[in-house]
């Protein structure tokens, strides 16, 4: 029974091992020539100003949450889109379209609710 899972455990071990060993290797082998700019905090090209413990408007979190929800749910549509030709060839085109439409409509209702309730109004 347990032997069935050996490939799985092997993969987990390899993933863990690679991730950890690559970090360590980079530390050992990489050249170290620090300069003031390199050593500063990375802020996507901007000069880091002030402290990192700043207070942000709660609106950022709202938009962030909404983004995560829709972003993750879009991921579910990729496998469907990739398999759509297969569905068409097997005569399930309309049915699978209906099924994914239900999913999209539910998402749409969420978006509608969000817009109507003012979740996307910045001010």
């Amino acid at each position, binding site marked *: 029974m347990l032997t069935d899972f050996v490939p799985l455990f092997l993969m987990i071990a390899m993933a863990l091992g690679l991730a950890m060993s690559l970090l360590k290797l980079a530390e050992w082998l990489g050249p170290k020539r620090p300069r003031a700019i390199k050593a500063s905090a990375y802020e996507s090209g901007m000069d880091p100003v002030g402290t990192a413990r700043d207070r942000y408007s709660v609106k950022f979190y709202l938009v962030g949450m909404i983004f995560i929800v829709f972003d993750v749910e879009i991921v579910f549509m990729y496998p469907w889109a990739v398999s759509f030709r297969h*569905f068409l060839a097997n005569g399930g085109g309309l049915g699978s379209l209906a099924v994914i439409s239900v999913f999209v409509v*539910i998402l749409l209702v969420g978006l509608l*609710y969000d817009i109507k309730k003012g979740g996307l109004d910045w001010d």
Partner: protein
Amino acid sequence: MYDFLLPDMGATAPILLVALIGVVLVVVDSFSNDSASIPWLSGAVLVAAITIELARVGVTDSAFMGHVMSGGFASFVNVVILLGALGSVILSVPYLSRTGHNFGEVHALILIATAGMMVLANAGSLITLFVGLETMSICLYVLTGLVRDNERANESALKYFLLGAFSTGFFLYGIALLYGATGTMMLSDMPAALVETGRTGFFAGGVALLLIGFFFKVSAVPFHMWTPDVYQGAPTTLAGFMSTASKTAAFAALILVLGRILPLDDVGLDTRHVLAIVAAITMVVGNVLALAQRNIKRMLAYSSIAHAGYILTGLAAGALGYAGALYYLLAYTVMNIGAFGVMSVLEWDGKQGAEQTIDSLAGIGSRKPLLGVAMGVFMFALSGFPPLAGFFGKYFVFAAAVDAGLTWLALIGVLASVVSAYYYLRVLVAFWMKKPEDAHVSVQSAAFDVPLFSKVVLVACVAALIALGIVPGFITEAAGAFFVTPEATALLP
């Protein structure tokens, strides 16, 4: 390729209908904020779903390639869940309007939670079980924290969410291990797969984790810590919804899992002992801790823990006890919706009326006779007084336990319910035998009337409890027919 879709949607129509209207309510609410039509719509769809399910109790069917059950057992449980939801919706409208929280979202969330509960209770596979559980739980987390400006509500919602998410993790690991051990997700294929693989350590681990997930949802000791805080912090009518419908769904799913993959009568006795011990601890701890409560909602929370113990006693008895447990779930739903309903009327506003205790309600029975009498019936029913439905519920589960050779468990159960009479009847003493002058000042001066909708539900609950108590036969016959073993039917009157 999708030929099965339409007939299967017909077989699961009540679930889909409730979920669909739940989504429609979100749209209605976004165009017309907190529209007055929303509660009507949600009540109407619940009535429609109950009608459909009642017509389907006689048939046994499954849908979506066996992933969802339909008809028979599933319909019976759905009716109980839908009744709980309907009672909560009707009680919620006046209660939440008074406190200014009758949002349209509440009803959408109740409907979607109800759909999730029905999916959970009708599950034919482990995946369906999980989807239903999550749909239900997430809506309940939101409903708990409905009163955003109340600190206690926020606290209870956060506690419920964190602990609930954690227990869902256990549940999911259990599913993963069961799948790993047997190679199938379908509950109906599990017994055959088990014969092939035997009861491996994987399987035992999966069952243990799954049971922990279930024990949390039905608030069995030692996984009960969240219950008092959540029921006290949540809006009262919604606490009633949580304590009845979600428990019914979780117990039904537990019956499905136990009946399918762990038939206690065939395979060893370990699981039966686990269930029996948990049931015994739950009954004792729930009842003893309820003795010390002065806040009535908190007392009802501990009482709901104790009742989970009684129902677990029925489950520990195996197939003999399932029908009794189903009857118990129906009776418990009616009496608890009623008890929380009375409390929701007594909390006439969000400030003075909140946090009612034994002391603050002294003498309320003579001022509001309807509430006093109704509460009397619910308290007697909860403590298991003979002519009412609560008594027969206890009789069926304890008789099944004795029949299954668990006499010690039935004995603990009977003793525990004797203890419970103290705290149930203490509420009645406060309601009727104390003078209004003893009460908290705010209650004396408060002028509030009993809303019509609440009256209707309370009277219906009282009538149902008496009717179920006088003629329990038609329910137990229907419930017994789902578990057609000769022993199970012999036990019923």
